């Protein structure tokens, strides 16, 4: 048995965590555009981003600062805030936010015991799930059943948002 299956990526990589603008030449690019593939320490340098056009390297930016910035923007101009982008309808269960409802498309756990266990709890294709909370562990409702599961497990359940 191998580890949990690699989740399929349904998400276009354009959200703020992976989209950058080069501070030197102004090119807008996504993280996928970095040209560090042959660098031996590329695994360790998660915090640095390199512009694919001019090669300028800059830090990815502090998440805390970005959060404070958003908070500040929101406080300054609550009405001018852009409406949050409509999330992609097809995703994995761990992307569902509390209160959202979705239909299960497919369960892709790599090991049979996990597949069977999720199936026994009602997480099967076609089932309607409602996310109750995502932290400290995800809690979802499937019919009359309440199931708690860790994020790694939620990641193998593919869903389509219905509400």
């Amino acid at each position, binding site marked *: 048995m191998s580890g949990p299956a690699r989740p399929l990526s349904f998400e276009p990589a354009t959200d703020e965590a992976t989209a950058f603008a080069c501070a030197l030449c102004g090119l807008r690019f996504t993280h996928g555009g970095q040209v560090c593939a042959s660098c031996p320490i590329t695994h360790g340098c998660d915090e640095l981003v390199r512009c694919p056009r001019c090669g300028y390297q800059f830090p990815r930016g502090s998440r805390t600062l970005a959060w404070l910035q958003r908070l500040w923007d929101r406080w300054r101009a609550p009405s001018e805030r852009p409406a949050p982008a409509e999330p992609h309808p097809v995703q994995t269960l761990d992307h569902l936010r509390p209160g959202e409802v979705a239909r299960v498309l497919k369960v892709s756990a790599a090991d049979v015991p996990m597949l069977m266990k999720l*199936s026994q709890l009602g997480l*099967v294709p076609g089932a309607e799930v409602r996310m109750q909370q995502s932290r*400290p*562990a995800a*809690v979802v409702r499937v019919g*009359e059943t309440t199931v*708690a*599961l860790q994020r*790694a497990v939620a990641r193998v359940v593919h869903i389509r948002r219905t509400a």
Partner: protein
Amino acid sequence: MASIDLAVPTESAVVLVGNPNVGKSALFGALTGAYATVSNYPGTTVEVTRATCAFGDRRLRVVDTPGAASLVPLSEDERVTRDILLSGEAGAVVVVGDAKNLERVVTLALQVGEMGLPYVLCVNMMDEATERGLSVDTSRLAARLGVPVVPTVAIWQQGLPELRAALRSARPGHARVRYPEPVERAAADLARELPAAAVTPRSLALLLLATNEAHAADLPAPKRGGRAAVEEARHRLARELPEPPGYAIHEARRALAAEIALEAGAAVPLRRRVRRVADRLEPLTTHPVWGYPILAVVLALAYLFVGKFGAGTLVGLFENDLFGGLVNPLAVAAAERVLPWTFARDLLVGPYGVITMALTYSLALVLPIVGTFFVAFGALEDSGYLPRLAVMVDGLFRRMGLNGKAVLPMVLGLGCDTMATLTTRILETRKERMIVILLLALGVPCSAQLTVVLALLGPLHPAAFVLWCLVIVSVIILVGRLASAVIPGRSSDFVLELPPLRVPRLGNIAVKTLGRIEWYLKEAVPLFVLGTLILFTADRLHLLGHLQRLGEPIVSGLLGLPAEAAGAFVVGFLRRDFGAAGLYALARAGRLDSVQALVAAVTITLFIPCIANFFMIVKERGWRTATAVAAFIIPFAVLVGAALNAVLGAVRP
């Protein structure tokens, strides 16, 4: 009276099987009058319970089994259930399910029918289904499955006469699962080679094809080729199917079950459900913010009830007023008048006397606290709060190579470490079971011990209790992390069903508490008496003095305790709470200052589990593991105590 013709042969039994947490044990109790522990979380029953029950003029054996989602086991407790059905003991089966979740119980019922065992389907918890606006068409279910279907509410004893009557017409039913063609073919091929068994060859073949290696060891093997032939068939099947064989087989059953359940049950869509009060409370108990204050309130209430009311008020009443003021002086006076020999007098009422030590400790000191603890714990178990705790601690437990589910045996350990050791069966991997067994034996104080520690630390500054908690919790986390690194194997992912929150029923709490008190009296009191006799003998033979001198370098040197404490540690081998009670007596006599009391409390908490726990580890994991656990714990407890003594000694006021 006409003799009642039961379809069940006398020598075989009625076996209750069902999904986890659907009330099998409640039904078992209602049928037989015997008590099986009933709680509101899955995994309460991890062993098989047997009792007899009158059906007409016959008495039949009734067997309660651990809950199983499927007869293809994923954990050791499910395996126990499978093995009972394969053993041929079952003359008839009652498949018990939750009326709110028909699909799941029908999946199980299809498997029982497939085995060729006559069964009755019992749809339990009808009250909760009705409350939620769900209806169950039992006649439709009966028609589809071809077996009697009885709606019940086991906790209120509703539907039991009907169930008894229905048992007479138990049948294997006629619902037949259609598996994918390659599965049918492989099962038919394998079935021809299998030796005769208590269940149909087809079901046995399917079981062999679906069961993974971990749980297949004691299944019967084909006459030709043995286990290797099964493995070969599994591999061939895996190549022919798009998904793993076990899953394909399960899905075929579930699909039919879903179809039948849809026909028989009217489901109310998620958004138009009837709202209950508990529905509003349920999300809060696991909420990332509100969950913690709620946990704090639960703990505080438990502490007030057990620590203040039980350990304070009740112990004062029992120990000072009843035993100190009445029983012991009376016993001493009676002994002086009736017994002319000093030896006999000392045996009963001396410093190591059966009445003055064993009975005073066990009945006056430990019993009131254990009793209140059992009440609080029973209420907590019934409420369904415990599994929600698993959600809150999942992250922390993950760092110890466990997952949130492991909190269930750990919290149960607060009741009794011995029983909790047995409950580790609900954990999925060997590694997780080993870690929890070790942590239970090392750090989780059982109710009896907890109470004496509370009594020992109660008179001190509250900081002492906080410090004690801190030390014990850090030791658990530290040893957990170390054990997770040292013990080979893998940990499982966290997936746990949360039962609905319910208002605890007073009747069930009372029955449960009485049952546990009876167990305490039967198990603990004789050991207290035995321990006292050992101390008495040692005292008579002047061994106690030798022992104290022998233990002095450790007890006085390392731990900084008076030499007499050695006696407490010796009887601590029998029961930790007895050892702790001995320390409590020393503290009472003013022989321990606050630092010594704290060091003593920590050391005895971490000390060797009671002898019953030790034998339970032997039973579950063998002598080698048990000896290794003991060999680690004794020096480790002393080490932590010595370290604490050294640190506190430096800052001693």
